[in-house]
């Protein structure tokens, strides 16, 4: 790294002025967006840098950071500004000219903030997080940072197994951040006054519910590399660390920042419901975001109205894990289409169930015909559907597909996965047959113009799910299955998409990784791994070298079936659903047994006994049925 440092406001601006036209998409690095908030630094006590560790146009639309931005900036004595990861062209200019990573709002170096809060929704961002720390001029390891440097906290879906990133992050937030972010900010502001060491600051922060400070927990390994037990450094530390939830969903953010350049989603996102009752056994979000909480229809309609007024966006996305399960979905769609059908707005409603009422819903939202109609059957044979607990009869799928085509859509998008536990080549071949049968329904209406786009992902066992014990498919198995699909899923109007098996391996490795992967991630980053989610940047060989440099093997993490009684690296993190429930569900799947939607009946997953008393569902919204043992 360069010895020169351009860290004052004028120096940063000078370097930018000289170089912005030499990089791709300079609009990524300048801020100045409508609704972005610039506060006076001398007038606030606590400054938080909110970071999505990817390039601007991917990170900018993230709803989580938008929520924290609004919550923190609403506090008169705090400020929050945004930080994204520069693309490789900008990175080299920053390193050459000594330009530190800076916030977009007031162009302050990250190192001058009190807290750096990073969201890590998926595992391929791990090396990017190290890159953020390094470009900020901070040591990458938590142990090497002191209280003169920002406190580095992280949250997001990937943090339900924080262990692979334990070396780098000072404190993790487990679960939902809306309340705990302010508790951390408030406590840290007090701690700052007291001239404490970082260790002492963290001791205090570890007392906050939902905060996990990894340096205070030591995994003790068995011979062979699995975990014997996890030992807290002191008896007063929580074990397990319980995730945080909000009892009622707070109003969604509406003063959203409107970017000046194109991003991956240019729209108002409104979360209509959190959590899911379906119990698909592969689904990490479905297990870890329980319980279900719905927003009332009026709140959603008001939020849309406000957000359109304050942003001018032309698109609204109604977000949830399973829109069809929202109790008042018909009323919601009616209310939204009544308000907006003649205002040149497009309303999207993803994650619809495969049933004819979904076609009615999308049709009443009018211009949704622009996109295709998307369904996610995930598997194509009865035995696989039973295994994953997502049962939709093929005939129902075909009937709904016919209805979609009949009402004017020409393209249906299908999401499948390969690599489910116990899957055979016949199960994979059934994906081909089903996709072709669906196209045949379309041809009854549109002839040769009926399209089916098939995306085939690869199943990755995730922590805190019934499949956390399962062995992943090997690269050879995945390749054989993909080859079958590439060979047979051909023809006019059929399109197939798949992922490179090597990239899937990285996600498999990191998802169920332990703390020993810390040095592996650091080594991979030293070997120039970053932007691992970008196909052209993923360097599988470097990752494999990093593993072998630490004397670890990929197979141990990915292809090894876990015995029922194995202690997992994430067992001291409690997301509410009990391990006993997950194991029972896994055993049911091995017997081909399914479990119903827990909307209708409680299966005692553990959420209600741990969080039930705190839940206060709003009138008219759904609540869990009573627990049954």
């Amino acid at each position, binding site marked *: 790294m360069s010895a020169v440092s351009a860290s004052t406001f004028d120096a940063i601006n000078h370097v930018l002025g000289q170089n912005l*036209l030499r990089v791709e998409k*300079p*609009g990524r690095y300048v801020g100045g967006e409508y609704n972005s908030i610039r506060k006076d630094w001398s007038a606030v006590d606590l400054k938080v840098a909110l970071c999505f560790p990817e390039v601007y146009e991917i990170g900018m639309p993230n709803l989580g950071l938008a929520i924290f931005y609004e919550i923190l900036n609403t506090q008169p004595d705090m400020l929050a500004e945004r930080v994204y990861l520069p693309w490789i062209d900008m990175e080299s200019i920053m390193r050459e000219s000594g330009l530190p990573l800076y916030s977009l709002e007031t162009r302050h170096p990250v190192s001058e903030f009190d807290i750096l809060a990073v969201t890590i929704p998926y595992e391929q961002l791990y090396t990017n997080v190290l890159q953020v720390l390094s470009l900020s001029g901070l040591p990458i390891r938590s142990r090497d940072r002191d209280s003169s440097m920002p406190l580095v906290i992280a949250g997001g879906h990937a943090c339900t197994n924080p262990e692979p990133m334990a070396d780098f992050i000072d404190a993790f937030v487990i679960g939902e951040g809306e309340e705990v972010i302010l508790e951390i900010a408030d406590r840290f502001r007090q701690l700052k006054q007291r001239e404490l060491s970082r260790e002492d600051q963290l001791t205090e922060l570890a007392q906050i519910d939902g905060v996990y400070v990894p340096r205070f927990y030591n995994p003790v390994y068995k011979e062979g590399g699995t975990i014997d037990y996890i030992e807290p450094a002191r008896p007063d530390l929580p074990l397990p660390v319980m995730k945080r939830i909000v009892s009622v969903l707070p109003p969604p953010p509406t003063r959203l920042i409107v970017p*000046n350049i194109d991003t991956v989603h240019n729209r108002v996102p409104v979360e209509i419901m959190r959590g899911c009752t379906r119990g698909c056994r592969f689904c990490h979000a479905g297990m870890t975001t329980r319980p279900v909480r719905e927003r009332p229809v009026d709140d959603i309609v008001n939020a849309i109205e406000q957000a359109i007024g304050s942003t001018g966006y032309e698109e609204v996305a109604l977000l949830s894990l399973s829109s069809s399960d929202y109790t008042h979905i018909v009323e919601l769609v009616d209310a939204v289409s009544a308000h907006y059908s003649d205002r040149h707005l497009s309303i999207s409603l993803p994650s619809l169930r495969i049933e004819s009422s979904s076609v009615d819903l999308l049709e009443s939202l009018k211009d949704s015909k622009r996109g295709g109609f998307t369904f996610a059957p995930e598997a194509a044979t009865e035995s696989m559907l039973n295994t994953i607990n997502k049962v939709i009869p093929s005939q129902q799928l075909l009937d709904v597909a016919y209805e979609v085509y009949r009402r004017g859509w020409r393209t249906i998008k299908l999401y499948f996965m390969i690599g489910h536990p116990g899957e055979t080549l016949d199960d994979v071949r059934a994906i081909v047959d089903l996709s072709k049968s669906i196209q045949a329904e379309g041809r009854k209406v549109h002839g040769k113009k009926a399209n089916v786009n098939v995306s085939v992902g690869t199943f990755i066992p995730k922590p805190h799910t019934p499949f956390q014990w399962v062995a992943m498919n090997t690269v050879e198995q995945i390749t054989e299955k993909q080859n079958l699909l590439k060979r047979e899923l051909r023809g006019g109007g059929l399109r197939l998409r798949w992922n490179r098996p090597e990239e899937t391996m990285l996600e498999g490795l990191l998802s169920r990784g332990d703390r020993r992967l810390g040095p592996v991630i650091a080594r991979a980053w030293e070997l120039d791994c970053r932007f691992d989610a970008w196909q052209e940047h993923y360097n599988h060989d470097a990752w494999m070298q990093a593993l072998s440099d630490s004397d670890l093997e990929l197979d141990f993490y990915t292809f090894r079936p876990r015995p029922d009684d194995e202690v997992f690296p994430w067992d001291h993190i409690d997301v509410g659903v009990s391990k006993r429930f997950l194991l029972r569900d896994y055993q049911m799947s091995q017997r081909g047994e399914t479990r119903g939607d827990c909307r209708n009946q409680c299966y005692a997953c553990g959420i209600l006994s741990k969080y039930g008393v705190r839940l206060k569902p709003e009138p008219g919204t759904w609540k869990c049925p009573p627990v049954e043992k």
Partner: protein
Amino acid sequence: MSANNDQSPGDPQPALAPQDRVRCRIRFQKFDTLRYTSHLDLASIWERTFRRAGVQLVYSQGFNPRPKIHLAAALPLGYASTCELLDAWVEGLLPDLPDVKDRLNHFAPPGLVVDAVSTVDLRSPALQTLTHSAEYEIVVRETVDHPALQDRIDRLLAESTLMVQKGKRQVDLRPLIFSIDIEPAPADELRIRCELAISQQLGTGRPDLLLSLLDLDPLSADITRTALKLADPAAAA
């Protein structure tokens, strides 16, 4: 022709008759961080600014309706401008123009300022066909010997053709250059003012190509478009 002719069947909202819309000509500045927003992205910024301001734009018909907004001349990425022109078709009869201007300014992002709003005849020719030339002010950020530069400029202007590479093809820049002058400026600064063609007949002269011909670095120069001249000056906002 009725506006209903191109309407998709089953659309419950009848389109307004053509006389219920107004074509507004807007003169605006683009500067600061918005310099790094491309011509294409600027159209979205305008659409969202109009929606926030509550000024209803006219949209095209069909499955993918687009607002009817025409920009006069693309401003290259990184340039500022004090003189951009935009035509926007607005729903309704004779809007209160000072009010439209105030509202747009209130809801515009930093770096976008509306200086004038007027109306033009709905049938008048497209803005892109009306432009003649543009003036640019270029602040050179590198150390340059003043007389030597003047000498290079004089030699350029004496040439009858100036072939330069523009993308994949060669173009003659000479007929696109109307003037180049070194401006009086503070001692540590060098300013060049030039007028280059932007017209359908001659083509578009880009200041960065001119700077390259003068052996100056176009990527570190500070370029502002200061005037956009129309063939018929009366048409300007």
